[in-house]
């Protein structure tokens, strides 16, 4: 069995074998890890459980963060959707926004999360998966299928570029998380393999250039709220793809472009807290207290 490192190869493989992306990838992972497909899925179930727990933990913590920059953000959002009088978001989107922020807050306080693909972007995947499952009743197996689909997207991108803010900026973290989540949603909603890849591509393409400028070197501002924004961004991409909208630039070329933008990005804007929001007047007054 040959490793798959491009989206083009992935789609060719799904066409020739007449399989879903998750089927191709669970076979590949099973081969690579020398474990059974059942074991691979079990590993994903474990991740899914940690994701669900991180949503619960994130929502059950009160009080401000040690730095004073955030705290109880998810609760605030949750309260809005408990009384959805004139909200622009339906309950599904309300949940996604709430959960993404909750998990990211949990990460900020050194709680237990699933890096997906990274910890800075850990709110995006769980929020989308769990909110869709709750609202539409997707069972565990269907969620695992979506998670493996997201994993396939993340792994293909990770084989082309390094997923660290210090190397590629936030586009390599929250951007990739958003691409993974967009693909996962299309899998859940029964879209085609091509639509899954286009959803991921659209999400990635439209977040290109996003810098990593964390205030006081903490994974807090702008990271926590950004997870909420990019979770919704993923849904936007999935909706377009499910409607049949395709990325004009093919997926593998978009990944190359994102990688290039990461290289061109100034190191001041790559997780060094030496540019952007990190050097604003207000940011300079913040004392890092992780």
């Amino acid at each position: 069995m040959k490793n798959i490192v491009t989206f083009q190869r992935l789609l060719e493989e799904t066409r020739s074998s007449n399989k879903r992306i998750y089927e191709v990838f669970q076979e590949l992972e099973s081969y690579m890890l020398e474990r059974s497909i059942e074991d691979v899925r079990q590993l994903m179930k474990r991740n899914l459980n940690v994701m669900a727990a991180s949503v619960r933990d994130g929502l059950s913590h009160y009080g401000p963060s040690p730095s004073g920059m955030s705290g109880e953000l998810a609760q605030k959002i949750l309260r809005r959707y408990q009384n959805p009088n004139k909200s622009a978001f339906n309950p599904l989107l309300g949940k996604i926004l709430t959960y993404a922020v909750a998990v990211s807050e949990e990460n900020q306080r050194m709680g237990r999360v699933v890096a997906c693909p990274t910890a800075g972007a850990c709110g995006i995947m769980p929020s989308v998966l769990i909110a869709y499952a709750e609202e539409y009743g997707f069972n565990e197996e269907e969620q695992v299928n979506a998670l493996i689909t997201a994993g396939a997207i993340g792994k293909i991108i990770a084989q082309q570029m390094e997923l660290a803010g210090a190397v590629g900026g936030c586009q390599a973290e929250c951007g990739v998380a958003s691409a993974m989540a967009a693909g996962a949603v299309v899998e859940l909603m029964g879209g085609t393999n091509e639509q899954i890849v286009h959803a991921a591509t659209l999400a990635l393409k439209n977040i290109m250039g996003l810098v990593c400028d964390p205030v006081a070197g903490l994974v807090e501002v702008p990271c926590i709220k950004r997870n909420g924004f990019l979770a919704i961004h993923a849904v936007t991409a999935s909706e377009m793809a499910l409607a049949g909208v395709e990325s004009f630039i093919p997926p593998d070329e978009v990944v190359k472009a994102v990688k290039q933008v990461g290289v061109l990005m100034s190191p001041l804007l790559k997780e060094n807290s030496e540019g952007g929001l990190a050097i604003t007047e207000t940011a300079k007054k913040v004392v890092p207290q992780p």
Partner: protein
Amino acid sequence: MIGPSSSHTAGAIRIGLFARKIFGKNPEKVLFRLYNSFAKTGLGHGTDKGLLGGVLGFNVDDSRIKNSFYYAREQGVAYNFEYLARDDRYPNSVDIIFMDTNNNVLMEISGKSVGGGEVQIDKVDGFNTDIRGDYPVLIMVYKDQKGVISNISKLIQDQNVNIATINCERKEKNQEAVLTICLDSVLSIETVEEIRKLPDMYMVRNIDKLEE
């Protein structure tokens, strides 16, 4: 994993844990040299706690990471951190220097964190390595001479284990050399002992792949 950063916390923990396994015993004193992004945002990202926690043997899911400094003191491990900026080093990189209580350097290991918790150990005592924890790995330091690699590979073959990659480097002829072998499955303790008994072996470490 425990937050807040996969590259700066989880990656740091795994580099520390890897370094501990290569060093092969409980450390007495450790100096961490953090470079570039590790140095600049490491404090907020818990990189220092992560590196130290890894060296103490904690894994990425261990909630003791938050209190690594406390556990180091409790275990009597002295530690120090230096923060440096160097253009010739990777953005997220660190040197871990193990010392005895008299400040003699026992071993120096360099690593980098490439994102999502993935790491690479790129130097052991000045030798270049490419250890990523995705395969079980055998690391050996020995006196450069004829037939060593063939003897080692014979023992590995005898156990019916496949060699995935092999990397060898020496300082100069007949001096210290390092051999890193990534394997498709884990060697038995007996085979590792056989390798350890080969002539002029200074160090043998058999390290399983990193946990997911």
